[in-house]
Structure formats: structure tokens, C-alpha cells
């Protein structure tokens, strides 16, 4: 068929161009955004809480379009798109991502009485650039089959020589780890933090790609002691109560367990500020917060009940991340981790 067309003596480049444009054009039309919607850059896209957003759509009649990606991906994209961004709301995990977005001027300050009632002061930015949706603890976890619970008392235990060759850690590229170390830099100082990290490295940890896989590795016997966010373990235990890994709540006599947040903010360049605020208010409401805690995270709204399967986990002594101090130290933290050999 093509050959016959060409025999009509059309120049091939023209035919090719027309054909390509046709195909591409059709494809673009087929995948176009349909209608005005509240566009959410959603760093929680893999947390399985999409139902919360459809509930919001039903309750308010505002159509929401979720565009998923990792926190850093969304940050990079938003930063480049600038004022042309289609995004109205940024939802992202980890303080590091929230702090960066605020620092880069991607989020605008919003404060409403509802938001202030929903979220305690230490869980939102002073100017309202971001509001926490959930909190999560980054804690040592150990094999219940091979480790004496009393042997794991805090973050120091990961550097305890008795666990030499038995620990595993997630890569230092991970924001959770970077935020933890930045928070340590802020609270313990450079020297103590470096000493602690070097003791961790001295145990020659296996470097693993994700918290979930790390838990699987402990369960499978690859290692005995690791460091994960609590909700990964919560989910594993929800799935299988016999899952042979337990959390060791760190420093319960001292500072407590490092607590980080996931949160949301209104994009600087949104033209739907009111809808965006409505979404934030909804997401921090008790009703929506239940959707988040079903995934084993803790609710940012203190009124929201703790999930049943996490009974006993909600009275842990926690050490909320020092947002203003830790944020500027993130870069130093990432470099320090590489310097001590944490890959």
C-alpha cells in the first residue's frame, strides 16, 4: 500500500511526515487531559490510598487527577515546569522532599482554622507551606528467631559488634535514611553522627533496595537486624501475624524513635487555590486519615483512631524530626553517608 502511494510520486519525506504526524496526533488526542481537574502530584501513589481521593471527589464534586511518581521525581518536575505546571497540589513522602519543595518556592503558605485544628503545630510548616498527612517511625527491626530483643536498644545497636555481618540497611540514596541522618546531625552534631555511622559500617551491612525487601531478607535469614519505616513491618504483620520480624523501639528512655512525615502543600502557581485547600482539609480530616492508617502509618490528626492491628504501637516515645534544622543539613547528610562508605 505504501509503495503504491509512493508511486503517485509523492516525495517520500512528505509521506513519512504526514504519516508520522497523523499517528502522533491521534495518539496525543487519545491521551489528552479531559476537562479541568484538580491535578495532584502524588508521591504517595504506591500507598494504595486512592480511595481517599475518590471519596473526596464524591463529597465535593471536585474532580481530582492523580499523577504519581517518587518524591524526588515530582520535585524535579515541578521545579522545571515552574509557573506552567498543571499541578495544583503536591503530596510527597518524607520531610526531605517537603523541605526541598518549600525551599525552592514550589509551595505557597496556606493556613485555615480547619487545617490548624486537624494538624498539630509540630506537624506542619510554620507558614503553612506543607501539612503532614501521616507520621512514620524509622526504627531498628530484628529477626524474632535469631535475635534477643534485649540486645537491640536503639540506633546504636546497628553498630554493635555482636551484629557484625548480620545487619542490612537500605541504600543511602533513600530519603528516609538521609532525613534520619540529617536529623541526627541536627541533634547529635557532626562528630557523634559520623562515629555512629562508622560503627554501622563496621558491621559491613548488606545494602538493600527497599524497606519491604529488607524485611523479606531478614525473614529469609539473609540478615538479622535492619532499619525500616514502621509501616512496612505493620503491613507484613497485618498480612501474616507470624511474620518473624519485630520492631525494636529505639531510645525509649531517651529521645525516642525518629519520626518523619508525609505531607501535602498547595503549589505556588495553582489557579485553583480554594479547591486545593479543600483537598488538604479533607485529607487531614478524621475520616480521610482512617484511609491512611489502614496502611499502618500513624495519622497526623490526633483525633483519628489508631488502627487495630497496630495496638500498642501508638504509645511509643517518638522524636519528631526537627524540620527547620534538619532540612538544610540534608546535603551534608547524603555526603557524609557516602564518605563513611554507605552506598
Amino acid at each position: 500500500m505504501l509503495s503504491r502511494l509512493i508511486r503517485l510520486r509523492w516525495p517520500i519525506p512528505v509521506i513519512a511526515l504526514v504519516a508520522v504526524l497523523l499517528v502522533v496526533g491521534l495518539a496525543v488526542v487519545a491521551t489528552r487531559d479531559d476537562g479541568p481537574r484538580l491535578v495532584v502530584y502524588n508521591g504517595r501513589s504506591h500507598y494504595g490510598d486512592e480511595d481517599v481521593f475518590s471519596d473526596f471527589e464524591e463529597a465535593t464534586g471536585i474532580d481530582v487527577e492523580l499523577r504519581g511518581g517518587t518524591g524526588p521525581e515530582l520535585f524535579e518536575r515541578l521545579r522545571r515546569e515552574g509557573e506552567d505546571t498543571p499541578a495544583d497540589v503536591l503530596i510527597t513522602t518524607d520531610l526531605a522532599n517537603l523541605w526541598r519543595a518549600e525551599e525552592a518556592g514550589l509551595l505557597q503558605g496556606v493556613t485555615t482554622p480547619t487545617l490548624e485544628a486537624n494538624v498539630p503545630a509540630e506537624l506542619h510548616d510554620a507558614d503553612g507551606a506543607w501539612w503532614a498527612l501521616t507520621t512514620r517511625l524509622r526504627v531498628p527491626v530484628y529477626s524474632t528467631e535469631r535475635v534477643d530483643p534485649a540486645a537491640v536498644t536503639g540506633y546504636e545497636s546497628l553498630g554493635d559488634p555482636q551484629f557484625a555481618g548480620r545487619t542490612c540497611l537500605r541504600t543511602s540514596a533513600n530519603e528516609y535514611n538521609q532525613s534520619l541522618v540529617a536529623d541526627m546531625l541536627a541533634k547529635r552534631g557532626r562528630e557523634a553522627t559520623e562515629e555512629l555511622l562508622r560503627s554501622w559500617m563496621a558491621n559491613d551491612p548488606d545494602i538493600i533496595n527497599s524497606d519491604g525487601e529488607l524485611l523479606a531478607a531478614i525473614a529469609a535469614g539473609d540478615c538479622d537486624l535492619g532499619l525500616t519505616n514502621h509501616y512496612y513491618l505493620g503491613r507484613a504483620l497485618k498480612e501474616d501475624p507470624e511474620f518473624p520480624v519485630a520492631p525494636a523501639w529505639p531510645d525509649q528512655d531517651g529521645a525516642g524513635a525518629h519520626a518523619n512525615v508525609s505531607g501535602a502543600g498547595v503549589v505556588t502557581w495553582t489557579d485553583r487555590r480554594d479547591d486545593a485547600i479543600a483537598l488538604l482539609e479533607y485529607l487531614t480530616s478524621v475520616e480521610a486519615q482512617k484511609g491512611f492508617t489502614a496502611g499502618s502509618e500513624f495519622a497526623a490528626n490526633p483525633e483519628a483512631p489508631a488502627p487495630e492491628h497496630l495496638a500498642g504501637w501508638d504509645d511509643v516515645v517518638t522524636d519528631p524530626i526537627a524540620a527547620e534544622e534538619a532540612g538544610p543539613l540534608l546535603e551534608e547528610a547524603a555526603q557524609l553517608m557516602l564518605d563513611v562508605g554507605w552506598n
Partner: protein
Amino acid sequence: MPAVPASSPPAADPDPAPVDGSPSAPVNGAAGAEDAPGPAAARRRPRLPGWAVLSTVVALVVVGPLVALPASFVGEGEAFDAIARTLLPRALRNSLLLGVGVGAGTLLVGGGLAVLVSFYDFPGRRWLEWALVLPMAMPAYVLVFVLLGQYGLASPLHSNLLGDGLEIPGLRTSGGAIVVLTGVLYPYVYVLGRSAFLGQSRQAFEAARTLGRSYGQAVRHVAIPLARPALAAGATLAVMEALADFGAVDLLGVQALTSAIYRVWYGTFDQDSALQLATLLVGLALTMVTIERALRGRARYHQSLARGDAVVPRPLTGWRRWAAPVGPVVLLLLVFVLPVAQLVAWTVETVREGSVDADLARSARNTLLLGVVAAVVAVTTATVIAYGQRVHRSRVGAVTSRLATVGYAVPGTVVAVAVFVPLVGLDRRIARWADSLFGLDVGLVFTGTILGLVVAYVVRFHALAFFAIEARMQRISTNLDDAARALGADRARILADVHLPLLGPGLLSGALLVLVEVMKELPATALLRPLGGDTLAITVWEATKDTRFDTAAFPALLIVAVGLVPVILLVRLMRTDGWSSAAEQL
């Protein structure tokens, strides 16, 4: 009309003077063809080497975004020093190891299998011949997902074929990554080697036999050397693919250059350093291409296109007869049959429990659409460049056409970002322009739609279409062009009436390769998708990252299944000698 038969290919003629657009005319001196009477003579005009110019321009457009990479070394390299001290040594070592390991592995496995199947007959050969192509449909990260899923204990899935908590020693090492990648990439060598062997005429082989060589010697000394360009091209593809792999190495925790780039980009948001790392990777890839060229040498093995005179495989006897199929069968079991069975088992489990993702149909549609669009565009660019190269050989053209294939070795993430940076600027300009001139809100034309992603795919996968089409085009004797020219056909007509029909299989396999790769593609898709338009690969990736294996199972199975369709078509082309009749379907 001056004939100027420029000596031979890379003539010292970098900026070809507009003589008459005739190619470096081959020996038989048909260069005066333009003078021949015929329809073309009526509208003769002084011509620039139009095809060459077009070809070069297209090549530059394809490679254009990557220019940012070397440019990144201009400027301060402070941050890079820190990376060079900590990340780089290990990443470079791992990437080199991956490249060499996968190159050797695929040559050995893919080449060995191609020889075995092409020259020896044994029980099961007929189905192994095509079954061996199947792993092409299995992306490395899906295989890794299946392997990691065997841990079972943290997974909501319970139908593990090999039981829960199975440990695979050494999986999370560069050795493990090499084995996994070789397992899914060897078909590149196998397919190209096999089709080279099928296209070989029996005469040379029989001449060797007549001269007293044994059958095995004839295979070693005649058939394999003749297939060298194809084998080298296949191994190059596999190595480039391995160097560009991000999903598998990242999931396995192997710190290669790709994951280092991703890490620098998204860890420190230091584009300069990430681009500098990427430049190193591109350098590594360029080295691979150069090596392949060197291996291929100046050799251009024109094979007769006559059918039915390929070497007939010789039946094996005795124990060899039964030993021969063991290796291929075990390989297939490990890298394809068992993983697919596992995916099926998991999928059945998720369907039963009703935990299938609601957005699955939409992501499947998106995936297919992206693949088709990218394939159409890539085949077009590849044909134009290859043909421009053929009709007017010049050093500039040779360099640019080669440059245009570099994207294949660049990790998807880097291509995406290299494409993203200029496109965002362009988008803003277009948006402003449309707004001020027409008061239209066109949005982000490239980065807000799939266009940006298509651009990235073409930059990245153009090479696949180009290699397939160029290799095929090289098999078309230049005598045909000369004959057509002598009969008065112009360049476009020769392409349409002579080349395209003969190129059919090349176009088809080029398009299929692009289609399959796009459907498996992960990092570029993750970055450039109009967010919200998830693809199957994204779904698998995000779920695997998060150990939600139940969400990943069905889309992973779909990726493999959809990927199988073009693979099977490709297989049909390989099986039947009727390359041209299969190509009619296009």
C-alpha cells in the same frame, strides 16, 4: 555531466559538493545514470544531495538532546569531585563488569544457540528454534521481580512455585545481575545470528566442504565468520542494553553507572554531576559501538537473497542427539517458562482474591499506544538515515548516523532528562506564544502530553530500528540501485520500489524491537509520562519497589504477554523462509 566516482566509502569529501547527487558510484560505472532518458530526465534539476542532507538533519535531531551531556563538563566540577571519590569507582567498575560479562555471555549463549539450531538437527529443534526467542519478551526487571518474590515471606502472595522463603545466593551481586541480564538479552545475538545463518548461501559452505573441511570446520571457519557482523551487532545491542539497564540493577542493589546517575540526579538534584556521570556512560557505550565497528571491519557481506539454498542442518547422532536439547531447554525453563508460570500463579491468586488493580486496563492501553507511536516514528527516522547514508556516503553522514544510535546506550532516565530540559523550555515558549498571539491555552505541548515521552523513546530506541534496517539494507546489493538508476528511477522511487519491498523484514523487525522495548521501558517513562497516565511497566516498578508483589503480578504478566506478540511474529519470520511474504502484512 561529471561522473566523479569518488573512490570508496569514506571519501575525503566531508562536505559533498552538489555535483549531481550521485553516490560514490561502484566499480561498474553506472554513475552517469542521471543522463539516462526517462521520466526523471524531464524534471532534472541541479541537486543538492538531498537524501544525505535530510539523513544528516534527522540524525542530528535524534541525537540532539544528548548534546547536553558533553556540554555538562564545561563549567565547575566541584560536586563531581566528591562523586568521583565516593560513587564513581564502584559504579564504573560494576558497569564495565556488566558490559563485558553480558557481552561475553550473550555471544556465548546466543551465538552458540544460533549455531546449534542452524547447523545441527536434534529432537525438539523445530520448536526450540522459535522458543529460544521468547525470553525477549521478559524484561530483566520482571525476572528480578519474580526472583525477589520468591522470598515470599514479606509478600501477600502465597502461590510460590518453589515454596516460601527461597534464597538465591549471590543474586544481589554484579554476578547475579550479569546472569539475569544475559538470560533475557541473549536473544538479540540469537536472532541476528540465526537470521544471518539462514541468509547464508550454501555455496560458500559447500565450497569449504569440497576443499576437505569437516562439517564442524566449515561451520567454524566459514559460516560463523560470515555471520560475524550480525553476531557483533547482536552482542552490541545486548551490551548497550545492559549498560542502560536501570530496573534490574537497581532492584538488585548493584551500584552501576545508571543507578549512580539516578542517585545523583534525584539525591542531590545536581544536574551537572549527573550529566557528567551520564557522559561517562555514553563514552563507554561509544567505545562499545567502535569496537563493534572494528570487529565488523570493512566487511559488507552481501548475501544472495535467493531462497531455499540455506545450509541444511545436519542430524546429530548418538548421545549428542539427546544432549543437544538439554542446555536450551534448561535455559528456557529458568528464564522464561518457570517465571511465566510463577506470574500466572500469582495472577490467578490476585484475581481470585479480587485484588487486581482497577486501573489495569487503562495502563495496558497507554502502554500499547506509546509503543506503536514510537515504533512508527523510529522506523521512519531509521529508514531516512540509513537510506541517506547509502545514496551518498560521506564522513559527516557516517558520523551523524552513528551518533544517532548513541541514545540506545544512554539510560532512559538520562535520555528523559536530556529531552525534558529543552522540551520544557520549548513548551513554555509555545505556551506564551500561543497565549499572546491567539489567546489560546495550549498547555504544555510536549511535557504535558505523551509527545515528550515519544521524543525520548525515539532518541533512545532509534538505534534498534536503525541497526535492523541498516543491516538489511546492506544486504541489498548496490547493483540494484545502479540498475534502477540506469532505468531512470530517482532516489525516492528506488527507495519505494526497490528498497522498501526488500527491506520489509528489516522494517518489521525494527518496528517490533522498538515496540517491545518501549513497552518494557521504565525509567524514561517514569519521568516523562504525562503523570497520571501510568503504564504497565510503571505499575510493576512501583509495586516491586514497595514489595507489593500482588499489585505487580498481573501487569508483569501482561507485559510479558503483550511483548510476546511481536516476538512471535518475529519468530514466524525467522521460521518460514518467506521473509517477504510475512512482510506483506505490514
